[in-house]
């Protein structure tokens, strides 16, 4: 496996298969937390950290525990438990060691446990980098990169959306379309723009 195939994974998860805009993972928080740029980017950073770590941990579990013992059916249960414990653990550590960081990211952490993007990337990794129970070459690095790329793509979409919504405050929108509906419609337009990347041959 060469560098270019790793670069491909990053570019394709950030732009072509952007987690929010083309895979629809992590939409709830995308609609909920994208009102202002500051919180949106903080949330994005927290998600990126968790997706990267979740990819690593879930790969270890899948590779060393689930596939050797043919326990693939426990994938959902074990992944979600590990992600939940990891998030909880991170919250406690940050709170103790870096109270300042906790002030910025802390409130987003509990939200991340049920963020589809985190669990989604763990499942996607096992779907994409294991064929018939066997890991493909470089699957560990690929999972890690996909986890990281997913987070970056999420942050990018959050940042763009928050920037648009901040300005939207001053726009005259029909009463019933305010807030949630208009956000979806804007997301639709953004998604169309991102569809332009899908012609990329990597």
């Amino acid at each position, binding site marked *: 496996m060469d560098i270019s195939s790793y670069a491909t994974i990053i570019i394709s998860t950030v732009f072509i298969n952007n987690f929010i805009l083309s895979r629809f993972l992590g939409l709830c928080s995308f609609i909920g937390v994208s009102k202002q740029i500051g919180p949106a980017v903080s949330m994005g950073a927290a998600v990126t950290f968790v997706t990267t770590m979740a990819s690593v941990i879930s790969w270890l579990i899948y590779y060393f525990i689930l596939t050797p013992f043919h326990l693939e059916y426990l994938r959902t249960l074990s992944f979600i438990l590990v992600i939940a414990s990891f998030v909880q653990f991170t919250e406690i550590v940050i709170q103790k060691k870096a109270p300042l960081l906790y002030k910025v990211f802390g409130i987003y952490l509990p939200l991340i446990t049920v963020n589809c993007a985190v669990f989604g990337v763990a499942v996607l990794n096992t*779907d994409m980098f294991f064929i018939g129970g066997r890991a493909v070459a470089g699957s560990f690095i690929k999972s890690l990169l996909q986890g990281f790329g997913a987070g970056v793509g999420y942050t990018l979409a959050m940042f763009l959306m928050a920037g648009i919504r901040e300005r939207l405050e001053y726009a005259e929108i029909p009463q019933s379309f305010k807030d949630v509906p208009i956000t979806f419609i804007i997301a639709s337009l953004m998604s169309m723009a991102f569809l332009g990347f899908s012609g990329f041959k990597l």
Partner: protein
Amino acid sequence: MKQLFKFGVILGVICLTATLVLAVTYQVTRPKIEGELSQEEQNALKVIFPAADSFTRKTMGEMEYFEALKNNTAAGYCLKITANGYNGFISVMAGIDPSGVITGVSILSHQETPGLGAKINEIKPGENDQWFLRQFKGKRAGKLEVKKDIDAVTGATISSAAVTTAINNAVNAFFKEVKNKK
């Protein structure tokens, strides 16, 4: 500390029960799931190699394939191929005769975008097989090219090329293995 212990026990009991329940469910559904999968494989085999009357599963190195038998002699081979599609793996089966001419191609599973890449498996109204896969029939595998030998699905050049390249590579690798063995 005592409280922590109690939490641990309760959580442990719940996890254990859950695992037990799942293990039982898995044992109950497994024969059906596996039966369903091999049924699909058998159906695909019949589609891609209609001339054969039975198939035997064989492995050669890393490769898994089926030998197509007709009157108890090998009439060709059906290869299980994994293509790197646009969204993930495309699981393909291709039948070839001993000279490498494709007898048929079938897609077992894929995760391509509905409306775009998914059209590699599309059956047009009024027809009874997939137009994209039909193109492979009767062509010699090994050097097939999208847009030259095979028309790509509109808007899904990557998926189309992935299937074509994977078939080429698999057939080439297969014949190389066969030669090495002799």
